[in-house]
């Protein structure tokens, strides 16, 4: 059976749950690119759910972490990042690390995220950190933004294991244009 060489459309099976005999598993590997710009808890959840699920479906997945999204990749034991007082202030007021993400709404000084995680546990929903770890185990590429690292004074050794070397906007755009789906979260 020959594969169609046109740009693949979104698989109908994903939408309708139906078998598509036309593809016969002979389609090009689909690629998903996510720009994780927000470090908010609900958005980090969306990013990690989509990335891990796409990787589970054997898609090639890369996530570009920029601006507040970069804080998601900071090691849990790193409390304050930055070298000058302004960068340090940023980290003091907005603690880095995936376990410290705040809700954009109803944060209530941490009460909102605490309740949300309590609910997640009750309903068997994985936390963003667990999802990110599973995504890494399934080969999701984690790519930090160089400009954000420089501006916020975050160094490569402060980021979790398995993160790729930082890149710039042009490299991120190349990933986006090559992907079948690109999301800005």
């Amino acid at each position: 059976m020959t594969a169609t060489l046109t740009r693949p459309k979104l698989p109908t099976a994903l939408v309708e749950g139906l078998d598509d005999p036309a593809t016969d598993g002979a389609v090009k590997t689909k690629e998903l690119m996510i720009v994780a710009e927000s470090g908010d808890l609900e958005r980090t959840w969306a990013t990690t759910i989509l990335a891990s699920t796409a990787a589970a479906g054997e898609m090639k997945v890369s996530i570009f972490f920029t601006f507040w999204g970069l804080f998601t990749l900071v090691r849990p034991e790193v409390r304050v990042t930055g070298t000058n007082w302004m960068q340090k202030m940023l980290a003091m007021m907005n603690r880095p690390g995936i376990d410290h993400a705040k809700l954009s709404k109803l944060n209530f000084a941490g009460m909102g995220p605490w309740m949300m995680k309590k609910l997640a546990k009750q309903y068997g929903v994985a936390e963003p950190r667990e999802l990110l770890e599973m995504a890494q185990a399934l080969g999701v590429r984690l790519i930090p933004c160089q400009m954000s690292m420089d501006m916020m004074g975050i160094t490569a050794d402060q980021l979790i294991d398995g993160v790729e070397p930082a890149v710039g906007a042009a490299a991120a755009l190349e990933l986006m244009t090559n992907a079948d789906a690109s999301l800005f979260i």
Partner: protein
Amino acid sequence: MTVTTPIAKTVDARGLSCPLPIVKTALAIKEIGSGDLLEVLATDPGSTKDFTAWSTTTGHQLVESSVDGKVFRYVVRKK
């Protein structure tokens, strides 16, 4: 469909919500050989459609999809 090949590995995803049953299945399938069977137990009602879709996109054959009370059982043959 009657399964005669023994199950190589079982994923217990009971009580787990989307996307964990699928993600845990994808992690487990890496640990078995081609042609081996993977059994997944789940309670997430959305998992039936998820497993059909996942099987179509990945090419791993869904050889069984059944339900016993509240527990869904899927058997996947690794491609």
